[in-house]
């Protein structure tokens, strides 16, 4: 009986903890839900510069709150997501984007892994080919046969 109660308390604690975070994540009631949804979708792709491993959507840093306010206002003013992203990258650079654009400075970032993959495959292919040639059966030449016979004879003799 005691054990069951203990488990009940534990489960209840879990429920309480999670309901708390759920309440915290709800949109502010006086904001337009459509804009809030759009803002959430956009800010989840953006990096908070203060705590760099958090998205702008999740961060509770002061700057993140100000930027969300800025984004909310620009959305209300009818700006497109592209325009808002341009606004942010003009100020903070491409670093705010979790999905960096393909340009000269990011070529290595985007194509580097594929180049490595191709180079690695080429090296592997050459290596295996050489190895196969080394171990493939080739008939002995007359000279080699003579030497082999000699060795055998000496061993036995």
């Amino acid at each position, binding site marked *: 009986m005691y054990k069951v109660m203990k488990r009940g308390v534990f489960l209840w604690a879990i429920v309480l903890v999670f309901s708390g975070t759920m309440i915290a994540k709800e949109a502010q009631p006086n904001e337009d839900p459509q804009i809030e949804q759009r803002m959430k979708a956009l800010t989840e792709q953006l990096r908070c*510069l*203060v705590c*760099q491993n958090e998205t702008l959507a999740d961060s509770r840093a*002061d*700057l993140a709150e*100000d*930027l969300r306010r*800025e984004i909310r206002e620009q959305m209300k003013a009818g700006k497109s997501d592209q325009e808002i992203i341009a606004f942010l*990258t*003009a*100020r*903070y*650079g491409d*670093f705010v984007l979790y999905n960096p654009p393909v340009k000269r400075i990011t070529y290595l970032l985007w194509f580097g892994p594929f180049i490595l993959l191709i180079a690695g495959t080429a*090296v592997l292919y*050459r*290596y295996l080919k*050489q190895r196969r040639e080394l171990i493939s059966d080739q008939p002995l030449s007359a000279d080699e046969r003579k030497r082999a016979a000699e060795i055998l004879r000496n061993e036995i003799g």
Partner: protein
Amino acid sequence: MNRFLLLPLVLFIGLVAFLLVGLHRDPHEVPSPLINKPAPDFKLSQLKEPARTFSPQEMRGKVWILNFWGTWCVACREEHPLLLEFSKTGAVPIYGVDYKDDPAAAKQMLAEEGNPYAMTVSDPDGRTSIDYGVYGAPESYLIDRNGVIRFKQIGPITEEVWQKEILPRAKQLNQ
């Protein structure tokens, strides 16, 4: 000997070189896209006389520093005595933006600990700071005669930064 056997060693040395360079870089120093671009314009109330405004336009023809700070910012308080020293040399005038701060607290701090700023303006809602791409005070911008940003220091201006980065640039820009 197969020359391909050396390949892992070469790759390893390359990787070590990359990591070594990476070790000495601060991931919090994000290069600003505003370098060599015109300093964003603003019109903000002066800290001491809120009825009067200040705009970077007024600084045309001068080389100057715009420093974003706040009394709530610990690193700014560390930087403060150094700024005082730098301002006394008169080499480059320093203008302050009091970033998301209580004006009374800011005035009190300047009165008690000295005022390195030729002028301070208030940015209560942080909009101007967003325009400058400020993400962690203190941040300082060296602006040339044409109103173009030439250098940005993220974090406190140290003695070394002042001597090696700011003074030589200011000298060159003033020529």
